[in-house]
């Protein structure tokens, strides 16, 4: 699992294909991936159908994001003033390393031994857990899915459903192994068993934590609030019980007003899980005030850039509208076939194919924007109308300009383009190749295998041409006066 934070990145050009092949051969993974289709797609469609103004809402959401991105500096400053006014602090982190160091320092200042965490993709992006653990701080993930991948020692395979690659039997095995001190042979057969056990294990962590770290789905400039959406309530316990709450979020999470936040929340839940609203939508504004019965004594926000400012001034700016709903993953036939881990990138699927090269560099993600049939379903379901296929194509163009695609591929394209610009040559070649292939295929009408076409015929027959090309037949008919 590579991380965005640089360093030893193993996402070499071959590793995506190898990962994909492994994923396709993994029967358990394939069974788990059926849940994407069965669950998310149908639920989103139903939620959208029950909201006739969905498309209008989508236009509004997009406009809010575009406006905010056009004035991002102003809104970030306004947000910072509000947070400070509420008694909190804001820390700007240009890089992943800066963000890690800031969070560690805050934890150390708080004398923290145990940190609880709500689900946060940005904390995954900066590689926060290993950094804190290396400094002797215990980190407990409290989102059920995140808890499972933490005990498995792997990364999330989906941005809103981190363990969508697992079946409940896999999780039962993990719990039996990792939850020490519980009776051997206890029942972990049902989802209820698993949830009850996780709740009991995590309860101890919630009560003992010194610092709670959450991400943010939105940051509101008008109020200085951070917003999280969860379905388990773990985020609330994470940010309310410890004496320090650290929010870690990337800069594009900001929206101007509370009203804007509500517009985006309506799109987010429907697009992601197909809910009208998530079970918990929690607004946090500064530390506990005098007289509050609970809440953290300190409230810190770490604002991560890590390449976003650069995207803002680039042709990939539209990607900064992303609200991380996961709809593009759920509807992507490639993601549906191979799951998230095969991408070798924290952010998988179409959004990852655009974002990962921007954050980690195209050298670490060359296959990602390439491995798409451009079916366009991602753009269709994106609640922020991000033109994902077009943005993937822009990465392909950058890759091509740098001369990175393999020589054979570039040469083939060059020869083809040479002919495509010369109709007589093109039709001449077609006039030779089509009948030749038709003859080679014989009465069968198709090829089971064909030299130089093994990539196709390895798994699919190749239908043979009928014989003469259209243009040749058309010329013949015109000449003979049949047309």
């Amino acid at each position, binding site marked *: 699992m590579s991380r965005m934070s640089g360093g030893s990145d193993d996402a070499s050009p071959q590793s995506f*294909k190898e990962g*994909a092949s492994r994923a*396709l051969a993994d029967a358990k993974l394939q069974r788990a991936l059926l849940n994407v289709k069965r669950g998310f797609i149908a639920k989103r469609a139903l939620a959208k159908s029950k909201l006739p103004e969905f498309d209008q809402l989508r236009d509004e959401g997009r406009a809010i994001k575009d406006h905010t991105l056009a004035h991002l500096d102003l809104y970030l400053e306004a947000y910072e003033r509000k947070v400070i006014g509420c008694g909190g602090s804001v820390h700007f982190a240009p890089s992943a390393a800066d963000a890690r160091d800031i969070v560690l320092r805050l934890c150390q200042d708080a004398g923290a031994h145990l940190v609880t965490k709500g689900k946060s993709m940005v904390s995954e992006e900066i590689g926060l857990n290993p950094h804190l653990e290396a400094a002797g701080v215990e980190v407990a993930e409290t989102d059920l899915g995140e808890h499972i991948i933490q005990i498995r020692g792997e990364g999330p395979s989906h941005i809103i459903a981190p363990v969508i690659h697992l079946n409940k039997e896999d999780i039962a095995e993990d719990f039996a192994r990792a939850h020490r001190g519980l009776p051997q042979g206890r029942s972990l057969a049902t989802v209820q068993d698993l949830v009850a056990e996780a709740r009991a294990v995590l309860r101890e962590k919630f009560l003992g934590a010194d610092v709670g770290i959450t991400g943010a789905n939105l940051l509101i400039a008008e109020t200085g609030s951070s917003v999280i959406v969860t379905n388990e309530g773990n985020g609330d316990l994470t940010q309310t019980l410890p004496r320090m709450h650290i929010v870690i979020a990337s800069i594009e999470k900001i929206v101007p007003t509370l009203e804007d936040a509500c517009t985006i929340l309506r799109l987010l839940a429907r697009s992601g899980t197909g809910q009208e609203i998530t079970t918990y939508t929690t607004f946090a504004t500064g530390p506990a005030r005098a007289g509050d019965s609970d809440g953290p004594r300190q409230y810190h926000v770490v604002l991560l850039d890590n390449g976003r400012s650069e995207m803002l001034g680039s042709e990939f700016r539209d990607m900064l509208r992303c609200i991380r709903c996961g709809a593009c993953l759920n509807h992507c*036939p*490639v993601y*549906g*076939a*191979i799951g998230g881990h095969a991408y070798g990138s924290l952010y998988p699927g179409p959004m990852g194919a655009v974002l990962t090269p921007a954050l980690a560099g195209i050298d670490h993600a060359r296959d990602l924007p*390439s*491995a798409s*049939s*451009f*079916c*366009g*379903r991602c*753009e*269709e379901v994106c609640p922020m109308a991000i033109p994902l296929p077009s943005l993937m*194509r822009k*990465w*392909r*163009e950058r*890759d*091509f*300009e740098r001369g990175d*695609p393999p020589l054979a*591929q570039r040469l083939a*394209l060059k020869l*083809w*383009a040479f*002919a*495509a*610009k010369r*109709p007589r040559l*093109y*039709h001449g070649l*077609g006039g030779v*190749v*089509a009948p030749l292939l038709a003859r080679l295929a014989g*009465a*069968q*009408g*198709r090829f089971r295998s064909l030299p130089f*076409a093994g*990539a*196709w015929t*390895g*798994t*699919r*027959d*190749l*239908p*043979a*041409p*009928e014989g*003469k*090309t*259209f*243009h040749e*037949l*058309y010329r013949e008919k015109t000449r003979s006066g049949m047309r």
Partner: protein
Amino acid sequence: MTTEAAATRGRPLVGLFVTCLVDLFRPSVGFAAIKLLEDAGACVEVPESQTCCGQPAYNSGDRGQAKAIARRVVESFERFDYVVAPSGSCAGMLKAHYPELLADDPSFAARARALAAKSYELTSFLVEVLHFAAVDASFAASVTYHDSCSGLRELKVRDAPRRLLASVADLTLTEMEETEVCCGFGGAFSVKYPDIANAIVEAKARNIVKSGVNCVLAGDLGCLLHIAGKLAREDRAIECRHVAEVLAGMAEGPAIGHARKIG
């Protein structure tokens, strides 16, 4: 009105964009398209200067070559009242992508936009522009229709082929599950990532088999070659045909990739 249009006595002059796959693999689709367009009252011409829409270059990131090819297509087809392709993918390239591709070319930007405005996928052109909603054809088969991605999502082609198919005698249309999901072809994608493309077309084949039909129709030859190739590899007795063949009443020849007589 163009001089050609005047010469066609008011009938719209259509330039047929044959597409490179139809040209090479299945010319009968091109002739079926001509028949349908003429039956619907159009005058059809096929410029010989056409080759391909440029998608292989465009989607491989070779913007320079894509532009060069796009300019040639504009030059070859701008004299027509309409440009029609028996493919949502190629028509989508002309309609949805040429204006962006040639936007910074001062001598072609406006011409690309003009071409885009008059470019159509075959079935939607027949129904929406020529108001031709009933064909004179029969096809005794139980069929399902696969919605090709570009046609469906870039051009919103969905009702037109179904409306036309409803007028074909003896034909029963059964919708398969996930008809709007990609078949995994994606041009070069199908050979650059063959394992993934295969997994996607396997799922498509499962849905086709489950629908119980004996024939799959679609408006794009790329998808059809891919689906037919998979069904053949699985030894399924299910035919694949371009929707134009059936609508034109020209579906008597062997189906895509099926055994045929030599001669």
